[in-house]
Structure formats: C-alpha cells, structure tokens
C-alpha cells in the first residue's frame, strides 16, 4: 500500500483538511491507500518512507518521489487533474512494491 503524506505548518489543520478530503476521494474511487498529515518541520523524516508527497507550499527541493500540488484541493482549481496525477503515482508505487 502506497504511503502518501501531506505537510503543513504543524501537521494539524491545513494538512489534515487536505488529507481528509483525499482519503474521502480515494475511498470513492476504491483505492486502498491512506493519506497522513505531517508536520513540515519534520518533513525530512516522514518523506523517507513515503511514496507520494502532497505539497501545499512551493518547493525547489528534489524529493525523489512524485510531488502533487495540494493547494488545488483547497481552492478547487485544477483539483481533478491533480487527483488523477495522485492516482497514477499511487498505482505506480503499488506496482513497484509488487503489492
């Protein structure tokens, strides 16, 4: 199962709002993955064993895993496109793990 993380200032509000929304959307598509909200101050720890990173900030760092634009799920703009990108990334990660 792919591990997806969302980070925000304290890993409480914005990230959990995005995570809850994504969990609901993934459930509706019957995709067995969960999204976890984490604290951006500890992102380096969390990213080590994550497969996809949903970011709500602009980042120039290369994380070696797919990065999805999380702001789309807050503003509603471009949401479908980002969600499809997320689903693709999850499928790829699952395939790699051989399930």
């Amino acid at each position, binding site marked *: 199962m792919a591990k997806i993380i969302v980070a925000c200032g304290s890993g409480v*509000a*914005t990230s959990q709002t995005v995570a809850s929304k994504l969990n609901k959307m993934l459930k509706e598509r019957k995709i067995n993955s969960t999204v976890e909200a984490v604290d951006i101050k500890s992102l380096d720890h969390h990213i080590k064993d994550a497969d996809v990173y949903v970011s709500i900030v602009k980042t120039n760092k290369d994380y070696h895993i797919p990065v999805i634009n999380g702001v789309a799920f807050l503003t509603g703009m471009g949401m479908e496109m980002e969600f499809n990108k997320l689903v693709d990334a999850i499928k790829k990660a699952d395939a790699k793990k051989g399930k």
Partner: protein
Amino acid sequence: MDVLKEIVNYVLNLGAAVFVPLIMLIVGLIARMKFKEAFSAALTLGIAFTGMTLVINFMTGAISPAAQALSERTGITLNAVDGGWPGMAAISWAWPYAFLLFPLQIAINIVMLIFNWTKTLNVDMWNVWSKIFTAVMVSYISGSIAMGFIAAIIQIVLELKSGDLWGPRVQELTGIPGVTVPHHITLLANIMHPFEVLMNKIPGLNKKVDADYLKEKIGIFGENEVMGAIIGLLLGFAAGYSVSKSLTLAVQAAAALVLFPMVSKLFAQALSPLSEAVSEFMRNKFKDKEVYIGLDWPILAGRSELWVAVIITIPVLLVCSIILPGNEVLPFAGIINLSFVVAALLLANANIIHMLIMGIITAPLFLYAATFFAPYITKLARSVGTVDIPKGMMLSWSTFESPDFRFLLSFAGKFNVWGIIGLIIWLVMFYWLYKDIDKKNKLNQTEGRKIS
C-alpha cells in the same frame, strides 16, 4: 420556556465532550451531511475533546510541580502553563455559542463580496476557532456576550481587508496564483509597520541571508520532540531536580509536545466535512467573480526565512519569560512563535534580519498578553468540565495571537476610555498600513508590466 431552559442547562451540564458533538451533529445535518457522516464527525469531535483533556492534564501534571519548585527555589514565579494554540483551539469549542461563528463569518464575507468591499473569499473554516476565542475573551472581560460578537465581527472584517492587502505579496512569496491569507495572525503587522518603515531607512539591515542553508543547519531545534526535551531538561535543572528526575521531565515534555498536534489533528478531521461543504458552497456562489481565495497561513510555510526566524526567537522568548517583571507564563506548547512570524514575513517581504528584529521587540508583548489573559483562558478551560488545573496554577498561551488587538478589543468592550482611544489609534494605523502596502503592491504591478 422553563422546560426549554432546563433542557439547555441539562445538555450544557453534560460537559463539552458531550454537548459539542451534539451541536456538531445538528449542524452537520442542517448542512445536509449524510447522517452517518455527520455522526462520525460529531463523535470524532468528542474524541478530540477527550484526547485534548488528557494531553492538557498530562502537561500540567508534569510541568506544574517543576514550576512550583522553580518558584520556591529562585523566586521566579511562572504559574501559568502554556497550552499553545492547539490547547486554545480545543477549549474554544466549549463555549456554548461557538458554532454561531460559522454563519457569522460566512454571512459577512458574502455581504462584503456582493458590495465589492473585499476581494477575498475566505474558505478557511478551521480558523473560525480564532473568532470564537476572541469572542470568549471579550465577553468574559466585558461581561457582555453581545460585545464578544461585536469583537468577532470587527475581526472578521479586518481579516478580509488583510486578505486584500496581502494577496499580491502572498502570491509572490508562495508562487501560487489567486490566493491570500485572511488570518488575524497578520494583524500584528500593524504595530510592527512603523519599525519596518524605520528599518528600511537603515542600509545595513537589508543584507541577503541564505535562509535555506540556515534552515538546514538549525531546523532540528524546531522539531517538537527535540524542543520539548530541551525545555523539559532546562526546566528540570532550573527547578533543582536531580539528573534522573530532569531526564524524566525532558521525556514527558517531549511527549506532550508531540501529542498536542496529534490530538489537535482530530479536531481538523472532525470539522473537515463541514468545512469542505461550506467552502464548496462559497466557491460555487462566487465562481464568476474574480476573487482571492483565502487560505490558512501554512501556504507560506515553504519559506525557510519563516522557520529560521521562529527557531532563533525560541531562546529569546524563554529568556524574556524569566527576566520580564510581572510575567507569569512559562513558555511551552506555544513556543514556536508563529504569532509574530507570519506578519513579519509578509511585512518585511522575507527580509530575515528585519523579521528577527520584529520577533525580539514583540516578544514581551506576547508574554504580557499571555499573563493578562491567563485567568480568562483558565476560566474557559475549567468550563470544559474535565480539564484539571492545579490550585494556584493557570493555563495560558505564551505566544497569544493578536495580543495588541485583542487587548484593545477587550478594554473597548467594557467601555474603558483608554481602550476605545487605543482601538481608534490602532484602526488609524491599520489605515496607514493598508495605504502603504497597497501603494507598494501597485508599484510592483506596474514595474512587473514594464519588464514583461
């Protein structure tokens, strides 16, 4: 009528962990959520309450004896334990009128958008708690619930105006088009603005600093477990504890700081279906209008300057808490001073030296506000019913958000002449800030056009 009153009293006496979920269930059903979804959200809210009670009680249980020992040993009396914003957000929901702030914020935003009084569409429903918190503080101090609501209305209007004001800068700093941060946390820019104007005249203060590099180096001190352990250990030694007892306190403090956001997350989880429904409704209503979408401040959290400034101000706040005469607050769960840094980042446009100076000069303001509001925060916490604060101790928030603004609102709310005069001066200063930043925004725009 008496029957109704009795029912209301009975429900309120059940305690916040029961009546808040009950209200949530009703609100969810009104917002046309499915029963199953509304029920699950309501129950999660109750769990969040219960979890937060455990963490607050654990924290006060671990820290209070050390604070009391510190006081006996050194004479430094810091008898207000800091629950940080997660603690405050939690207890705010225990106010019986809390949920009324949702429709209030939505209605004001709709009216202001229709009349073109604002460009900001605030879809951030999480921070409704900060309006609840303001309303509680002002109503406790003024003795009038109506005054609490008037204060919340003023805050909502100013937040939307701040959203308009900071929109272009937020978009520039985040690289995200069409968004802004209509959060009262930015209102601190108002009193820092004269300093910023002054600092802009001093040439040495605009040196470029590599914030990304600095953040790599000192970032670890901003992590909850590290910071908690350090504060716990220092407190243990200061209280005259033995090494083994100090180490235990260090681990307990680290545990508390890690558990706070874990439990606080449950509140966000419980409120998320409701906030999603509301923000979708709002966006659909104004989909043909050009607006800034208002989000919570963490969209700015990608800026390394913000974290560098926060981490460097941690020791400043600790030292201030010891040397400031009259301070009663022991900084702990709220020590990550987001309350100044978001405003400083926007106002100084990520100039890190300016931001640091702002953090240092405002530190006493936060501690004094935390001391002033501590009895009222304690009163609110006790109203939850299950929060256990030892006798002689209080609960507070070391980096009390919008300290100046909420202090003035509270005094103006009880018709104190100085409070009213202060609030008027504050509003005049806000007008100046608005004009100044608006001018800079427009200048940037025309310059941008010339280049492209």
